[in-house]
């Protein structure tokens, strides 16, 4: 074989191959896998990798979106369009009790909203369809307790995570065995960084929600954060006014809980450039992470993704 013709793999090639390998292992070893699709950039990359992993077959699992009913409208449009374009199955689930109770992040606060509409809803959905493995787009560079999590993260029948007793993972050998009712959370993007995700989106021309690009949008400054007024459910407090500002989002979640950043970056190149010079971390705009230094670990133990 001609040694000269062997191409050198860059770090994006390596990350891609690793993620694809993880997805195939889980599909081969689990009975009912599902891919959690949160519509953001990480989900976009994960979905793209799934299309690659099983080609020419379609990904042999559905997508699941846990809809808190408070997502940006543009996210929902994007979700439905992408699922149709790619011809993949999309399941959408919202916690019916939460809807009945009228849970709102404005009224009930971010903590309760996240607990009921995200954590609880996710558990209900996984139980409802009896999924035994759920792919998630979380990355280890996002947050300190995620940095400690395995690629295959084991959950008890109550969906709890025990960070002190994780299964060791060697080489590419994943132990996907579990007892009845137990399940796995699988993180194929574990070793990707925010920069890798954007570089890969650029390299592969992966469509992402337009909210990532700067545009004039109606925002309100509340407790130091720019909140976009996405629908009539957002009521102005005394002294607040809607301003039109050039903003974009670095991460996407529920609109009342996701802070916009002032930015002129309206293209992929501009976003990548802005990120490289940024002095703050990605999840800074996520209000739910700031309920205490270990709040992510706590949420994860309770079953949050």
């Amino acid at each position: 074989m001609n040694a000269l013709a062997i191409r050198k793999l860059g770090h994006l090639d390596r990350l891609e191959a690793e993620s694809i390998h993880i997805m195939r292992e889980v599909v081969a070893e689990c009975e009912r896998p599902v891919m959690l699709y949160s519509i953001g950039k990480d989900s976009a990359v994960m979905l793209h990798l799934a299309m690659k992993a099983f080609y020419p077959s379609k990904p042999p699992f559905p997508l699941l979106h846990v809809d808190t009913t408070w997502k940006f409208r543009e996210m929902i449009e994007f979700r439905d369009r992408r699922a149709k374009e790619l011809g993949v199955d999309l399941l959408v689930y919202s916690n019916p009790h939460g809807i009945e109770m009228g849970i709102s992040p404005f009224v009930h606060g971010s903590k309760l909203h996240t607990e009921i509409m995200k954590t609880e809803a996710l558990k209900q959905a996984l139980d409802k369809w009896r999924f035994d493995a759920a792919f998630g787009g979380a990355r280890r560079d996002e947050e300190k307790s995620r940095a400690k999590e395995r690629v295959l993260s084991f959950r008890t029948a109550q969906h709890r995570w025990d960070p002190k007793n994780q299964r060791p993972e060697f080489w590419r050998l994943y132990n996907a065995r579990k007892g009845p009712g137990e399940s796995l959370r699988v993180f194929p993007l574990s070793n990707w960084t925010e920069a890798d995700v954007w570089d890969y989106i650029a390299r592969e021309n992966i469509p992402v929600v337009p909210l990532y690009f700067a545009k004039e949008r109606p925002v309100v400054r509340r407790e130091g954060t720019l909140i976009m007024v996405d629908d009539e459910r957002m009521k102005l407090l005394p002294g607040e006014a809607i301003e039109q500002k050039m903003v974009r989002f670095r991460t996407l979640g529920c609109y009342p809980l996701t802070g916009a950043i002032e930015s002129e970056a309206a293209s992929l190149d501009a976003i990548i450039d802005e990120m490289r010079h940024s002095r703050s971390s990605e999840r800074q705009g996520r209000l739910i992470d700031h309920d205490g230094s270990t709040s992510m670990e706590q949420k994860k133990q309770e079953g949050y993704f």
Partner: protein
Amino acid sequence: MHGASANTPREAPPHRPVADKPLLRFITCGSVDDGKSTLIGRMLYDAGLAQDDLLEALERDSKKHGTQGDDLDFALLVDGLAAEREQGITIDVAYRYFATEKRKFIVADTPGHEQYTRNMATGASTAELAVLLVDARKGILPQTQRHSVIVSMLGVRHVVVAVNKMDLVDYSEDVFRKIEKDFAEFAKHLRFLSTYVVPLVAKDGDNLVKSGAKMEWHKGPPLLAYLENVAVEDASIVAPFRYPVQWVNRPSHDFRGFSGFVCGGNVRPGDVVRILPLGRDTQVARVVTYDGDLDSAVSGQSVTLTLTEEIDISRGDLLCSPVSPAKVGDRLKAKLLWLVREPLALEKSYLLKIGTKTTPAIVKAVTARIEIETGLAAPLREEGETLAFNAIGEADLALDSVVVCDPYVENRETGGFILIDRITNETVAVGMVESAQSPERGATALLEASYSSMEGLPTLPPSMLSRRRALAKAASWRVVGSALTFLIVYGFTRDAGLSLSIAAVEAVVKLGAYFAHERIWARSEQGASDGENTPSLHDAGL
């Protein structure tokens, strides 16, 4: 464009150039309090890679949990679990990602506490280089030796010994030289290809990113500069082709592909590959990806291969180079690191996972234990000794079915395996293959020779196939033999009845005798080839 079940290929070549840098995966390890987390935290800080809001949180946390008085406690940048922050120790591997102008790094920051050795081994299994931290006041400790032995055993070939806390020994060159010498003496059996010893003060950043002013006697580069430039070869690129089949890709009747991860060598359309354990050779037709067919795939890529013939292949099979094929066997000699508190039970059925194959297995015997202080094999202390939590030993395993593998020194991915408890589903041991043996080795060797020149044999397991062939050969020879016997006896006696009786009796007796004779010869051939096919790691240390 959308087929009912098929995935639509991409229409335009999408690739657009982005900065792709070489990647270095390394692990940091050392004893409790050697300052590993501090080292990583400080390196991120000095290299300007820690972000402002994280630094603000660091200031807050340093006041609350810090162990450095009024100074920033850089360990808190990386110790992420609540229990870790409270106890001030690292429990689990934390992965860190950073990039400089020259290189991209994935760091596995691993726990020092002996109780968490398995987490440390997890980090070592994917690392190319290990940074071993040593406290200048304490020198090489048993725990340093233990970590060195484990990283060496898991195939890490490059080490940096970071002698930390030099400020507490007055930046003494003598102290440093002594540690350097001690390590060289201890590590001479461990087969490291490169070793760099560097003195530093992690909390002040001396010799991390910038040279330490108080250690001018040290001529080498600071740690980060060394890591940016150190050359680590990817041995799997030049290894023989290895491709464990992960998933059979069958979207429709007219496509049958085998999805997998190339973990050795490379492959192109037209290459002849051997299917193991089947033992049959065939040709690669296409290398299929979402971005179009490739004209080659190299170690480190996930692809889907199609073959020129319809052959029944499933997950757990392996495609490999017919020139240097992998080994097939249901008996393994291997090194084991025991990972759980409940000790290894001999004769208990565990699940063994190697590559994409899982099979029940029992450990027949532990044949030696590995001295943690030296990394060398030592005799057992008592008969029937097994392995306790964190112990390393050599063992004989018997598997329910054959597996395809390589000695671990030749290929990390096809030579590494795990043992899983069938009740608790815990990963109880990690193992490294030294050699594989098949009970039908002689017959298999015979078969492999005949395969390289023929095609279209029935697809049977090698052992069964060889028995069948031996029988057919014996029977055909018997027909010729019996006809001759009949003619000879008839020639002497002119008695057709007697001739027929003698020929019939002889046929039955000799058929059995021939078969037995063939098997005995086959077995002695196995003995003759054993010496060259079962490399031993004993003399090489690890």
